[in-house]
């Protein structure tokens, strides 16, 4: 199959953001929202608000018709974004608008078919032109990613693959070698959604990722509170919050997103 090229020797926007947080003695905060929920301008304003309240990395999801890794809250938001007319090409304008207004690294989280449909290299080129940092790919494993390796190298983009509690040591090594920026450690066998506590399995996944050579391992799925951030921050390099922020945007708009981000980042007591 494919061998991942060495993921070194390139600047990585998400790695820089995470290392900056590390230098400040804290885990990086990675904040997710689906693009176009409920509309593009709200996404831009909410993302900038997240950056201003302590998010180091912004993760923008592309709404997709068949989001198998997402739980109900994010599904409902992406369904609404699509119903409101979201088009994939808007992601580049949204990324450009956000990067023009703040310094956070902006990653795009996308299921793979929209990228395939536009063309992997074309997608990468336009994302790089917009100032995007790279892609997080929930349904693309390194085994199938040869086109993405080439395109992400050509356009100097980060590529973040997922590792899970079920990943074997060998697959863990492959995912770590294939990733650039960070690896996304899935905390639990499940889909996105806020949970009362973050699974104990998360620490094992991070330890395995570090043992496999990952310089930066960040934890997502179920992370929703400042307490989670503190807890995970004790062993991981970053924490990824999604569903809780989406619910905040849904219920309280951009202000609620700003508030929750400040709480998560510890800027608000």
């Amino acid at each position: 199959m494919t061998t991942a090229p060495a993921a070194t020797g390139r600047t990585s926007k998400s790695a820089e953001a995470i290392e900056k947080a590390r230098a400040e003695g804290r885990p990086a905060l990675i904040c997710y929202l689906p693009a176009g929920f409920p509309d593009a301008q709200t996404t831009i304003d909410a993302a900038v608000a997240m950056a201003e309240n302590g998010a180091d990395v912004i993760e923008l999801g592309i709404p997709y018709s068949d989001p198998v890794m997402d739980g109900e809250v994010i599904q409902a938001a992406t369904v609404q974004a699509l119903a409101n007319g979201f088009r994939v090409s808007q992601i580049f304008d949204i990324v450009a608008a956000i990067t023009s207004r703040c310094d956070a690294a902006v990653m795009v989280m996308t299921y793979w078919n929209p990228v395939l449909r536009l063309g992997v290299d074309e997608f990468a080129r336009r994302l790089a032109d917009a100032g995007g940092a790279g892609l997080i790919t929930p349904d693309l494993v390194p085994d199938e990613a040869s086109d993405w390796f080439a395109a992400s190298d050509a356009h100097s983009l980060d590529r973040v693959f997922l590792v899970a509690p079920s990943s074997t040591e060998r697959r863990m090594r492959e995912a770590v070698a294939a990733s650039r920026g960070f690896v996304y450690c899935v905390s639990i066998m499940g889909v996105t959604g806020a949970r009362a506590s973050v699974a104990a399995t998360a620490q094992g996944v991070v330890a395995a990722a570090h043992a496999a050579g990952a310089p930066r391992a960040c934890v997502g799925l179920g992370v929703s509170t400042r307490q989670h951030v503190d807890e995970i921050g004790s062993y991981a390099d970053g924490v990824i919050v999604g569903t809780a922020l989406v619910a905040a945007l849904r219920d309280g708009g951009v202000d609620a997103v700003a508030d929750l981000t400040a709480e998560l980042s510890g800027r608000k007591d």
Partner: protein
Amino acid sequence: MSESAASQPDTNPAEGFLAGADPSAGPASLKDAPGPYFGDYGGRWMPESLIAALDELARTFDEAKNDPDFAAEVAALNRDYAGRPSLLTEAKRFSEHAGGVRIFLKREDLNHTGSHKINNVLGQALLAKRMGKTRLIAETGAGQHGVASATAAALLGLECVVYMGAEDTRRQALNVARMNLLGATVVPVEAGSQTLKDAINEALRDWVANVDSTHYLLGTAAGAHPFPALVRYFHQVIGDEAREQILEQTGRLPDAVCACIGGGSNAIGIFHGFLDDADVELYGFEAGGDGVDTPRHAATITLGRPGVLHGARSYLMQDEDGQTIESHSISAGLDYPGVGPEHSYLHDIGRATYEPITDAEAMEAFRLLCRTEGIIPAIESSHALAGALKVGRRRVEAGAAPEDVVIIANLSGRGDKDVATAAEWFDLLDAETAEAARAEEPLEEPATAREGRSHAEGQDA
């Protein structure tokens, strides 16, 4: 090395698969393609969380294929429980409407639970037990695969949860009751378009969360590796039997084999028996819905383009953004916007031909089979029947002597489940209009070579 490929005798599936696992068998044989790739199609476009489970399934499947006890167990269940081999019935009165050619029906409708689906569920349920899993999950559209899965779970003492679009649970309340009677839990899926593809999404979400105890019993020859090769393996018995039976009954191979295509499991099962018989034409008939010149159809290969859905790269109904387009068909079992990757490959290399059949054409064939043969076919299978009529008429128009043309149509399921739909279509629900409909709609004269209008349209769109 491969000189015998085209003339190899029927083998049992276990032996056949072993032969195919050897890449040195060369390109001459299309049989037993092991995956993960079929040309550019197939693969594993899946969340990392599920890769370990797919690996475990692939490993278990490989071991099982090499285990004579497993083959014997499958064969015994097929014979003593499912009722195999299924018959091959010559449909003489029906054939008169195809220019007088000889159409034979592979009677998967006579299997236990009424369709080919039983072949796959028994095999996969055995694999689940072999892996030590105690719980089966499945998706279903109209309910056929859900009923079959619930049946296998009851037989083998496994828990069973079936995901079904909320809209489908309302339309198919009786099938929901059947699954409940068999001890399964039916979960209505409210997400997305509330149809089959969303039921698959929800089943995948369940699988991610419960993979240690649970096997996902996928119902068609699609999805991530090893499902396409695995589901085909359990359905190969259809083609193996059909090939032997047609040789027995006619002393020759057929000119054409016709099957309907949703995800494509019954089609790949019957095609497989004839893949290396180069002179046997293979036809897959997709659901043309209202017509492929309208947006309401499920003609994935005819009008789709390659993309990734539910774990495999294959032809896909998608919009300019790569969003999946909702499919439409009168037949819930064909109402799926994707198709198994091996079909995409057979299409690209020209080994099989894929054409759309409209709802109207399928229902006409449905009515014709009821009245000429006393068999009520599934509406899914009626697409294959309508296709067989077209293929027969075309052969005759091209100058073939009708009695020399032999066609097998895979009658993949019985139509009991479709009686309400058919009654509505033919306006039979009211006693008076029903009587009028019978009086006003005599069967058209046999042997007309009238071609359906929609066939020629849209082929190259």
